[in-house]
Each structure stands twice: as C-alpha cells, then as structure tokens.
C-alpha cells in the first residue's frame, strides 16, 4: 500500500526541465525547485509512510502568480497539488510524479484584523496558532485548535476542515470561516462566502471546506474570531473501567452541559504521557477524562459543581479540579503531547482518525484491544470523547519487515469497525491517499459517482490533487476484490479487472 521512491524514467526528467523553465518565466528563478535535493523535503506530508517526488515545486508569492501557474498547468494538463505546512496526516499533499506541488508557504501574512466585526483576513500560509497570537491583545482568538496548530497553516485547515480539542462547543473549521478566495483551475480568482453571516446562493464555502485541494486553490481566508472566555477550569476524573468513562461522557451531555473540551485517554496513553510530562495523571486508571468548562466565572462555577455530581454518579475512582491555571495547563499538557510521548517509546506510530457514535465507545474500545492482540501491535488510545473522534495510535517499527503492512491492516480493521458501528473513517484528518480505499466501503458506487460529478463541476480536466480523497470506481472494484467485508463483496455490479 505504501509508495516507495523508485528510479525515474528519462522522459520525466526532460519534462521536469521544460516545466521548470516555463514556470521560471512566471515566478523568480529560485521559487521553482527542480533539483532532487530541493524536491526531497516535499516528497511527503505528515504521513511519511507515503513518499513520492514531484515534478517540480513552485513557490509563488502573489495571487497573480498563483493564477498564472494554475493557468499554465491547466493549458498543459499538468496536475497540481497545493501544499501548506505539510503537516496533514492522510497524505493529502503527497506529490504526483508528473505534477507540480504548489506551495503556499510564502503567503504567510495576516492581511487585516477587524476588531469590530471580530474577523481576520489572512493568507493561507499563516499558521493556525499565529492567528490567535496576533489577535490575543484584543481579547480574541481563533477557535479551531488542531494539535499541530503551532505548525499547520490555515489554508490546509480549510482544505481538511481541521478540528481540534474544542470542537464540541466551538465547532470545526467549517464553523469558523466566513469567506475564502480561491483560484479555480481555469485561473479565475473567486470569492466564496462573505463577511456577513451568510451569503447568497449555494453554500459553496461548506463545499470547499474539507475538499482536500480537489476543487480550487485557497489564496485568502477570512476567519471568525471569538471573545476569549473570562474563565476556564478543568476537572480530571479517573475510572477503573473504560466503559464507565464512556458513560460518564454521555451523562455529562445528557445533563445539558457542553464542555469546552472533553477528552479521554486509555491506560496506555496515560502511562506514556505521564512518563513524558509528569502531569500528575493516575497511572492505575483504566481511563481518565479531562473536562474543561469555560465562560463567565459564575457559569463555570455552576457547571463545575454539576459536572462533579455527574462524575460521582458515573462512578469515578479519583477526581481533581485543577487548582489554578498552571495546573490546568499541566493537565492538558499530557493530552496535547500524546503524539510526541508515543514517539519516545516506539520507533514509529500510525495515527488513526475514526469517529463513532459515543454510545459505542465501550464496545469499540474492547474490539480495538482484541485487534491489537490479534495483530500483535500495541495501540495507545486518545479520544476526543465529546464528539466521538477516536485517535488510536498504532505503535510499530518500520525497520522490522512486514510490520508497516501489518500496521496498515490493523488500521484498516479499525476503520471497518468505525463504519460498522455507524461512524466514519475520518473525523478530522481527511481521506487523502491514506483512506482512499476505505471510501469504497463508506460510500457506494452512486455516491462516489456523485462526488466525481461535483469534482467535474469545478475541475473538468481533473488536475487538482487528482486521485486523492475520492476513489475511482475502477480503484474500488480492485480494492473490493481484495477486501471482502462481512462476507460480502462490495461493488458486485462492477466489472473486475
């Protein structure tokens, strides 16, 4: 399933020279990369198991240059992969061998901040966290906070519809963006959305958000800013059984409380993060819940009392309210550093991203545990419990023969499980290259055909990030031949190749 680097054919090399030289007429000479050593950093995104060298990388620094590059590619039938910071976890920015990588890295300026309307206009290469830092002095912030927020950029966030720790209350990227400017595959600059709360016509903004670079190139984003809450407090509770912790989550929500953050970690995750950051986690617990409440001090005090009561009724074994902001940050630090913490104990790890109905948490967790034994691979579970988004981290060693393949199989089995219980194969990381085959399980032929028709509406020649996110029916037929799901062959109506 992984794509390993291989020797290039000579025609590709001559094509590279020609395209690089053509693009140097549009952008500065050093803004086109065509040497192998300069292309190498672009061969993968955050999903490093998938690698491929692009034809060339181009780094325009004006919208006009983007338009010219895109028009050139359109005229010459060259595929384009737009790229932000390259932190994506699904291979969405994986280059195409005979395609151009269009890096938006130079578009890194905050263009304007509108204090009165609480919005900011930013270029796509502005880092997620930089937006909040820029407006912090106004008492404002940008809500979506994916864990890669130090590095990931807003253009990529829109392309992936990125989430984060606070989605349940404050929404995903789609809920926090007002307007974008895109360059279409024909090179037209189009404004989608508006600075008002809605805009006329179809909700193209929702369609563009999460479209993984298949419909247009984002060159400007207007985000909604929120007023920082006066007060935030976090409760940490331990449980001796993961199902009890899952029920506690449901009980909090049934009690009418929507916490700012509601996260769960299993014992394996507690132990590795505690070793790493010494947050004071209960390493004996089967699961811990971190529940953050924010708002006015009065509201937070009220809710803390209500949540304490619910947790008590849900059978916690230990409970602690962070005594000050330092301790609150400390409690969160473990959860936020789960990925690097796992990186310390395993040469490699593979992060999954399914979403399930919350009520199935207990049964899904025990099945994941079973699968982990079956494939003989350790799994560490962190979980955006509030909105049902699982992030099982599969620990493996890429240097051990066959282990990566086994990891991918286990990952696939976890995704199958998510679909089976009524969930989805990706909550916030996107389909990209990684989950393309699982799209064949989640959607049927007609639905995939409808997706292709949507693509056609924007990109007739299929040049924008082709063959990602939505599989061809041919691919599904081939995948279906290998992947027998619950004893039933998918796509029985399609010819087998």
């Amino acid at each position, binding site marked *: 399933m992984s794509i390993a680097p291989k020797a290039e054919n000579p025609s590709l090399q001559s094509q590279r020279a020609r395209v690089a030289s053509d693009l140097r007429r549009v952008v500065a000479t050093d803004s086109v990369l065509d040497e192998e050593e300069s292309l190498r950093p672009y061969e993968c995104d955050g999903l490093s198991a998938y690698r491929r060298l692009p034809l060339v990388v181009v780094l325009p620094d004006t919208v006009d240059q983007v338009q010219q590059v895109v028009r050139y590619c359109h005229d010459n039938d060259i595929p384009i992969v737009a790229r932000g910071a390259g932190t994506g976890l699904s291979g969405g920015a994986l280059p195409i061998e005979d395609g151009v990588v269009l890096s938006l890295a130079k578009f890194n300026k905050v263009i304007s901040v509108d204090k009165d309307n609480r919005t900011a206009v930013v270029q796509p290469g502005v880092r997620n966290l930089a937006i909040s830092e820029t407006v912090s002095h106004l008492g404002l912030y940008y809500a979506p906070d994916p864990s890669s927020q130090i590095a990931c950029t807003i253009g990529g966030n829109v392309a992936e519809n990125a989430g984060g720790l606070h989605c349940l209350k404050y929404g995903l990227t789609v809920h926090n963006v007002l307007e974008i400017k895109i360059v*279409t595959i024909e090179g037209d600059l189009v404004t989608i959305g508006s600075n008002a*709360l809605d805009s006329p016509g179809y909700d*193209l903004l929702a*369609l563009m958000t999460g479209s993984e670079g298949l419909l247009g190139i984002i060159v400007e984003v207007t985000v909604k800013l929120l*007023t920082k809450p006066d007060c935030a407090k976090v409760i940490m509770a331990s449980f001796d059984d993961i199902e009890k912790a899952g029920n506690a989550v449901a009980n909090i929500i*049934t009690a009418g409380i929507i916490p700012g953050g509601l996260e769960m970690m299993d014992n394996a995750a507690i132990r590795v993060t505690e070793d790493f950051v010494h947050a004071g986690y209960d390493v004996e617990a089967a699961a811990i819940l971190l529940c953050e409440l924010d708002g006015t001090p009065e509201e937070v*005090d009220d809710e803390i009392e209500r949540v304490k009561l619910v947790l008590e009724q849900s059978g916690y074994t230990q409970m602690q309210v962070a005594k000050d902001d330092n301790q609150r940050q400390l409690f969160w630090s473990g959860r936020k550093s789960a990925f690097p913490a796992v990186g310390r104990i395993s040469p490699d790890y593979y992060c999954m991203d399914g*979403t399930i*109905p919350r009520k199935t948490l207990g049964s899904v967790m025990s099945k994941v545990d079973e699968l982990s034994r079956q494939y003989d691979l350790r799994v560490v579970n962190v979980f955006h419990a509030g909105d049902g988004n699982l992030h099982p981290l599969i620990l493996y060693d890429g240097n051990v023969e066959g282990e990566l393949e086994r990891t991918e199989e286990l990952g696939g089995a976890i995704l199958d499980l998510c679909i089976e219980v009524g969930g989805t194969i990706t909550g916030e990381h996107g389909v990209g290259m990684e989950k393309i085959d699982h799209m064949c399980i989640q959607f049927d032929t007609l639905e995939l055909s*409808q997706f292709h028709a949507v693509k056609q509406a924007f990109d007739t020649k299929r040049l924008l990030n082709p063959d990602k996110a939505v599989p061809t029916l041919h691919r599904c037929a081939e995948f279906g031949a290998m992947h027998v799901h619950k004893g039933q062959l998918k796509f029985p109506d399609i010819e087998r190749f």
Partner: protein
Amino acid sequence: MSADSAQELIDAVKRALDSNTNLCITGGNTKSFYGRDPVGEPLLTTIHHGIVNYEPSELVITARSGTLLADIELTLAEQKQMLAFEPPSFGKQATLGGAVACGLSGPRRPYVGAVRDFVLGVRMINGRGEDLKFGGQVMKNVAGYDVSRLMVGALGTLGVLLDISLKVLPTPMMECTLVFEVGHTQALELQNTWAAKPLPISATCHVGELLHVRLSGSEKGIIAARKQLGGEQVQGADEFWCNLKEHRHDFFKQAETLWRISVPPATPALNVSGPCLVEWNGGLRWLKSDIPAQSIRTTIDMVGGHATMFRGGDSENVFHPLQQTVLTLHKNLKTAFDPAGIFNPGRMYEGV
C-alpha cells in the same frame, strides 16, 4: 405513511425524468413565498415523515424530511433539547425538509450557528433518481465532499431531501430578556460593544426605540450579566422572540417590500430609507422599502453584504446577483446533481 415512502418519492422522480416533467418539491407549503416563483408539478415530501432516530446523549436527531418541524421541536423539548438555530416555520405545517432547504435561521443564529452548522448528514434523491447518503450521524466527519451542507439553502434545486441528521443542543437552564430604550444608531453600537464581551447573550432585536436582549445560561451567569448590562427585565419574553422569528411582530405587517439584508454586524446604519428592524448583533437587518432593488443592492454591496427580497417585490429578482464565475459554478453544480434540470427550476436564479 406508506411502507416505503422514500421509494415512492424515488419512483415519482424517475417518472418525472421519463416524462420530462419539472417538479416543485413541496413540504408544508409554508415558505412558497420565498425565492423566485415555484414552477412544476408538486412533489409532496409530507408522505415521508417521522423521526428515524433520536438519542439525547448523542446530541443527534435523524428525521424524515416531511416531519413537522413542530413535532421535532416537541420531541426535543421533552428531553430538554432544541434545534439551536431556531428555524422560522411560518406556519404549523412547516417541515424539517423545508426548513433545511430554505436555510433560514432564527434569533439565536449568531451565537450558536446557522442551519448549515447543525446539519450532519442527509439522505437524498438526485436528479437521476438515485438514492444517496452523505455525511452521517456523528459530529465530525470529513469523508467526501460536504454535500449535506451544500443542500442547506439550496431551495431544493439540487435534490429531494429524504432524511436529515442534525446536531441538537441542550436548552439553556434559564433565559431572561432585558429591554433598553435607545435609538437605531445607539442600539447598533451597544450590540457590538456587548458582542465583544464574554456575555451569555443569545438574541438581540432593535425595532422602533426598543432594544431587546436575551440572555441564556445558568442562573448565576444570568444574574452576573444583568448586573453588567442594566436595562429592564421583560416578563413573558418567549412570545416576543417567537413572534419575531415567525414574523408576527407588528413590524412585519407591511405593505412595502420586505428586504432581508445580511451585513457584517458592525456595519453602521444603512444609507437606505425605510423602517428597519435589527437582529443578530447588527448582522441581520429587515428593511421595509419600495426603493428600487438596484439602488438597495448597490448600497449593500458597498458594505460587503447581500440583500434578499424576502416578501413582495419583483419575483424575478429575489436574490442578490452572483459574481459571474460563481454563477457558473452554480450552474455546473446544478448539472452535477440535476442534469435534466427538473428540481425547482429557476427557484433560486435563472438557470439554477
């Protein structure tokens, strides 16, 4: 309801395709005034009704498009939950499908989100008579294009909605409405000042010389906010907000064209003559005026908003004109979903 009302609707769409008949997708027929003139044979979605699945602890409800909005609201209220975007129904027969297709949201919209923000998934019939499912019943789902949200506000021009899954929210523990006697300009300033503070405001409305502000939250939170804001408490305010949402407030008894004007909230008083009702912290302005559409739209373009002829006026020219490339994308999408152009043709724009 018949055993398989979805199949009946699919069959009806296929028959219309075969006979080249345009369809006018109709729910409770309470919003037929909205948009360009309806054309085509009615396709009644009301045969397809009922709540499919509702689990309060999941904060998700799935219902068939022909389900009465009132039934859904009642079911949710029994569990102390609500459709937080407060969709206007404009009549007892209003259906969920109609509310989603029209994409209109009520007073709480700026604080919690619009219809589109709560739609998690749809099952729909496209213009090829195909039965399709997009999105799902979970909060976070980025598999495939977000077709579910694209259906919101599309006025049925892209397909027939069958089932819709929505995120729901708990009803606030307590609500309280305050009233202030202020003029138009001062009301705009006040709303904007308050919106910048972490206050539990959940609706605002200025009309005449009165500014109503609703607070939602815990008792302690509301008491603290009241201290900050001042004003007089209004008794029985639920009726006020309901009348506002349903356009039963006196302001809406009009002879002139009613304009729905959506602008960046901090936009100062609009330079157009006519009585104006302000909601959404200033983001939504209802204007009664018979001045020419072109003149209103030029003014609104300058402030970065858009103007819809909500009731009355020239039925050809209801929605704000689109940028040419955006209109082309609309037409392309229409073709992608409804190649024969049989669903609600021209209801939104000519050719869409």
